[in-house]
């Protein structure tokens, strides 16, 4: 039996800066996970991923990442995605200080 579809966001790295970005419902790329579009329908997710992958001059490596609804917006569920929202743990570098 196929597994139930879990909510997702679309994330990628920015072409020029290389940092982590998320696709919003109004077709922008944001640095904030909470501003991402939370996708709950599998067919819609595939279409949105195709939309993202077409934007080759803005982003690199778009993919669907598990997420869940939170008080301020979508939140990551896997630790890898949590790290991507903030940066490395050995220095205060990356999003944890830049945002």
């Amino acid at each position, binding site marked *: 039996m196929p597994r139930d579809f879990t909510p997702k966001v679309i994330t990628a790295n920015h*072409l020029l800066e290389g940092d982590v970005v998320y696709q919003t419902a109004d077709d922008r790329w944001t640095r904030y996970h909470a501003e991402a579009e939370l996708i709950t329908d599998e067919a819609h997710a595939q279409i949105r991923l195709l939309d993202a992958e077409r934007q080759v001059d803005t982003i690199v490596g778009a993919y669907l990442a598990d997420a869940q609804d939170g008080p301020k917006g979508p939140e990551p569920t896997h630790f*890898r995605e949590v790290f991507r929202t903030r940066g490395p*743990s050995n220095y205060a*570098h990356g999003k944890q200080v830049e945002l």
Partner: protein
Amino acid sequence: MYRYSDFDRDFLAERNRQFRAQVERRIDGSLTEDEFKPLRLMNGLYLQLHAYMLRVAIPYGTLNSAQMRQLAYLAETWDKGYGHFTTRQNIQYNWPRLRDVPDMLDALAEVGLHAIQTSGNTIRNVTADHFAGAAADEVADPRPVAELLRQWSTDHPEFQFMPRKFKIAITGAPNDRAVTAAHDIGLRIVRKDGEIGYQVLVGGGLGRTPMIGKVLAEFIPADDLLPYLEATVAVWNVIGRRDNKYKARIKILVHEFGLENLKAEVEKEFALRKPLYAGGKDVALLEEIKTHFAAPAFDAAPTDAFDAFYAADPIFRSWADTNLSEHRAEGYAIVTISLKKQGDTPGDATADQMRVMADLAQRYGHDELRISHEQNVILPHVHKRHLPQIHAELRAAGLATANIGLISDIIACPGMDYCALATARSIPVAQEIATRFEELKLEHEVGPLKIKISGCINACGHHHVGHIGILGLDRAGVENYQITLGGDGTEDAVIGTRTGPGFAYDEIVGAVETIVKTYLGLRESAEETFLQAYARVGIEPFKAALYPETKTRAA
């Protein structure tokens, strides 16, 4: 130190010009990422978790002070003020922006450095013993051959699209400090009946299928080395598997095809290739390269100042006892500068620290520095009378940690703090282990102990050959750390044995402490090292200590 010829400089300038144009075409949209990716990887540019990463080769780990200063300049101009020295004798910059990378490469070219073939399915940076040219136990300096291999493999038209990457390491000493048995090809310089030649190991490698290299040839005469290596790589390039990237390395070919069959194929290929080298240009070139690596003019001076300071200053003495190695020249020492200060990131150096090390090398070290695969920096040629001054300056720069070969001298890959392939973090695990044993004041009592940590099965942190190896995995969405014991990366290379189920992130430091305390409890004397004790008692006492409840559960 190898000096670039006009040919080298022109080649590098042309290559950088090409890459600059490729970056421009990527940014203006004429190249897709699929088209650009192999091009950027050929030039050492990765896209990691939080940013691009530029991996710069430090050929056979050798730098001069000008090159080290230029690495510092890159760190503060285009990065966040530091660089990360890796287990492959490379330096990685974790935060470059795509537009800046061509400028970084041009700046590197000014001092004869580059990022060519630090990625991709090519022959990678040839690594060597970091004590090369200085070690007391050396048969011959391996760096001239490493340089010859660098020139031969760089842009070698036959070897640009191989089944997978290919790593060569070389040592000129019987004490293997270059982990040659864990490379696709490991070369060991040996002397037979007065003649210098090479023992060739093949099919070593760590990663998901760890293998210790096997002897492909006991003795290849110096004049045959290049055609023999070319034959070996060529055979693998043709018959190595391309259907599955996890089965593509030459170690899998050795395993599936058999060492004897491979030997036979290599011999056939060698017979075809040897005549192409009939002019002996490679041999002449090697002789020319050797002149670049002539030993410096060593000072003949008394070492009284060192002896007096050693007797008088306990902090200096402790550092000298752990961080100095025997030099081949009278009155000299090899200094290992630890980049493993307890609590810091293994292998990281700030731009300021790089300049301090460059200055020391220039003033007191015949202008030479080395990067070790253990992520430390070496001043290979230091007269002992300068050591008190060097130690004082290192101390002021936070670089005088006296822990070489001890429990806090940990190898750790970048792990999930930076790496897109990682399945768990490794840096904070290393930081916490080092800090814990610093607090316990046990480090010097424990003695020689190599901990190596990888954040995924690709094993950049060499965990398989750690006395204690730690492998970070993702188990059902949680970081989990497996432990292996008894690994050894020296001439007696051994892959470590797994203890059993892994440990959670907040349990792993305690597990390492349990192992170390078990060792302290069972060793026969303070002279019996961890590895010797492990060889004597095996894994069981450690398992029993790590998993005390297993017996009852199994019952």
